[in-house]
């Protein structure tokens, strides 16, 4: 019976092809626009590490200015000072801990005639790779001893390894980085989380790092650091003075396996801040926070305003398209009054007719959904070209989104079809038959 209804629906769609294609086009445009913006929002706010996001915590301490609270007192400073980050690292009170900052430098090619390579990367602790599930192609992370002994070791991204070593296993080889000899200990597989949650202070959707080196090399000035730096208290000249200053520039993460550990770590942080007060630091009331990945992304509003605004607009756009569909379906079904009257007279029950016309609406919805997916694909392509690198990798349809698009198209058209169908089924057969 069901397949018979579909057959009738298709015949009917074909017969009124003008009206039908107008409806399909309207739904497709609505679905296309909605899917484009929903996809961008969905990928921007996606949980970058679903199985672990509730175990990774961003640590913030309020070591800020007593006169001018950071962020108007709503939240503690977004990054950490060198003193606090290294103290917390040494205390080792969490299951794993990582401090990191953006770094950059120049890699000199083995062949002096080749152009040197300017690279952006990160300086972090050895725990970083295990905490954030970073995939390795060759080799492994450096160990904690390398951190402590400030060894000149380096982990390369797949792309950097391709450029420098033609993609072969370069573990154990050396390269000249910042005029010093570094040993390659590992090469990563493709790794480009969006948002780049472990450090959003310099742009959550920036390009992935080219290299990773031990954080301790920054204090040695063996690599140069960059990224956001905020200071409130004056300090003397020289790098030593900068390290000892109240400037914040480090992202500090801990991995805590359960709620007990979280509470214990919070107690530890508060005790630490109180202890620092004895040295004349932490002049503000104690406000130390542990925030997990998803909460932190939400708090920092990683999803851009533009993207949210467009999503709201595209949903209204979809509503216009559906209103259009309701109107056109109404027109179409009422136009079929004589046929409906005839069928009723021949014994078709109202529920049979209702089911049949709902199926017809559903067919139109499915067709609109399919065409809408094509539009969404084109829409995402143009979003990617228009926004450039900012949207790279954010403008792709995944399986979830395709399913969502089809369900959205089907459900919304069926809802749009309910009223016209109901109207059509209320037709009095006698009156229709009379005038034939």
């Amino acid at each position, binding site marked *: 019976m069901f397949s018979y209804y579909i057959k009738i629906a298709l015949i009917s769609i074909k017969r009124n092809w003008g*009206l039908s294609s*107008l409806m399909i*086009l*309207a739904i497709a*445009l609505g679905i296309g*626009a909605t899917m484009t913006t929903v996809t961008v929002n969905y990928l921007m706010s996606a949980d970058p590490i679903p199985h672990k996001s509730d175990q990774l915590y961003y640590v913030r301490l309020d070591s800020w200015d007593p*006169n*001018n609270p950071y962020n108007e007192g709503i939240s503690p400073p977004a990054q950490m000072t060198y003193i606090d980050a290294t103290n917390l690292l040494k205390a080792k009170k969490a299951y794993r801990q990582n401090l990191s900052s953006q770094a950059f*430098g*120049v890699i*000199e090619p083995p062949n*002096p005639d080749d*152009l*040197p390579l*300017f690279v952006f990367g990160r300086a972090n602790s050895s725990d970083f790779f295990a905490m954030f599930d970073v995939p390795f192609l060759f080799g492994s992370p450096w160990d904690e001893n390398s951190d402590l002994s400030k060894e000149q070791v380096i982990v390369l991204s797949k792309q950097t390894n391709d450029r420098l070593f033609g993609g072969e296993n370069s573990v154990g080889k050396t390269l000249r980085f*910042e*005029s010093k000899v570094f040993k390659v200990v590992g090469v990563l597989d493709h790794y480009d989380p969006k948002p780049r949650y472990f450090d959003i202070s310099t742009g959550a959707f920036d390009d992935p790092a080219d290299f990773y080196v031990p954080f301790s090399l920054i204090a040695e000035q063996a690599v*140069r650091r960059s990224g956001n730096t905020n200071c409130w208290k*004056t*300090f*003397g*000249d*020289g*790098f030593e*003075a*900068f390290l000892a200053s109240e400037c914040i520039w480090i992202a500090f993460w801990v991995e805590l396996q359960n709620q007990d550990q979280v509470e214990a770590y919070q107690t530890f942080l508060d005790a630490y801040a109180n202890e620092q007060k004895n040295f004349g630091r932490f002049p503000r009331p104690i406000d130390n926070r542990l925030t997990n990945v998803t909460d932190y992304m939400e708090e920092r509003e990683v999803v*851009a*305003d*533009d993207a*949210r*605004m*467009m999503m709201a*607009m*595209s949903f*209204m*756009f979809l*509503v*216009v*398209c559906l*209103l*259009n569909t*309701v*109107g*056109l379906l*109404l*027109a*179409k079904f*009422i*136009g079929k009054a004589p046929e409906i009257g005839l069928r009723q007279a021949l014994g078709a029950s109202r529920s049979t007719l209702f089911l049949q016309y709902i199926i017809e609406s559903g067919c139109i919805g499915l067709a609109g959904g399919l065409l809408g997916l094509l539009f969404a694909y084109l829409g995402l392509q143009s*979003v990617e070209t*228009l*926004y*450039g690198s*900012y949207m790279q990798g954010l403008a792709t349809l995944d399986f979830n989104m395709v399913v969502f698009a089809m369900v959205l198209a089907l459900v919304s058209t069926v809802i749009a079809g309910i*009223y016209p169908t109901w*109207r059509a089924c209320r037709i009095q057969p006698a009156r229709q038959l009379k*005038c*034939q």
Partner: protein
Amino acid sequence: MLEIGLIFRALMRNKIGALLIALQIALTLAIMVNAIFMIQDRNVQMSRPSGLDESNTFYLTNTVFGENYNLQAALQTDLQKLRNMDGIDNAIQINAVPLSDGGWSMGLAREPGEDKNSVGTAIYMVDEHGIDTLGVNLIAGQNFTQQDIAWRGAQDTKWPPKAIVTKALATSLFPDDWQSAVGKTVFISKDQPMQIIGIVEQLQAPWNGWSGVERSTLVPSQLESKSAKYFIRTEAGRRDEMMAAVEKFLSESDKQRIIRQVMTVEDTRKQSYQQHIATNKILTTVIITLTMITAFGIVGLAIFSINRRTKQIGTRRALGATQWQIMRYFMVENFMISAVGVTIGAIGAIALNYWLVNTFQIDPISIDLIIYGVIALFIVGQLAVFYPAKRASLISPATATRTT
């Protein structure tokens, strides 16, 4: 117009169809007006001048990696050679470039001390060629002299004793009379005094979204840094040619460094506003598609209702109605539906704007724009209904005599 009552009564017999069109028009108006408003808002932001001679300037980053490198000597040689190059007007070293999104900001206060209110400003470190190379206008006071210029190491925190500020910054510091800022001493980094020796008309900060984008300060410092920017102004029309020449000359003259990110100020502007441009294009597409969908909806429903009424129309024609009267009927009908639609739509537009203002911190919409939107949608409605109405008017009076 006696027909109005008649058309209204006829419309009431098919309320839902008319209401659907009216609602579509209403939503279209609400979205369209707000989208246009956002486009205008972005256009205003994008049209602000940076203060630079944008069409004849470019910059590059000079990154040194060699060890035991004499940064001071190298910079002096580079700048001297660049300034003497044929086709180049002037060249400087600078720490940041307007609209490039990367830079240095500080607070300036009228009094020294930890808890004094300060005004945020972008800092540009230049030498006495700064004003000429950037192409900004000095409107009060004077430029730096060669004696003012001091070296600043990468980790230094001392500021030079002189500064030139933009008019916007002078106004923020001295709201009563910006011109009085010349000669005054302000404090940077809480307690370091700096004398304002000049005021430039306009120079934007590196961050286009910052509310203080017009507030900038020039200080007479030259960075002793392994990574610094050179900013170059060429003779009119020779920029692209000189870009290639300068890059080649600099990279070949010294193998201990990398010349990278050679970029024009015009491209920097485009990149800076890339999201704005993209959003505007998307909003424009939304407006056009939306209007088209609504128009097609009107056409579709009009054709449908005309098909249903073929016999009625024929009868009217047979009874003496002119073609124009038939057309007029449908145009007036559409006008009435549109009137309901735009009334709801105008309220909707204000409501949507209210929500946008609260959620995304944008400005409230102007009433003018809503009025233009209303007029535009009336025109769209009339244009959309014109073709079906024309078809209706061509229905032959003989139709009245036929059965079904």
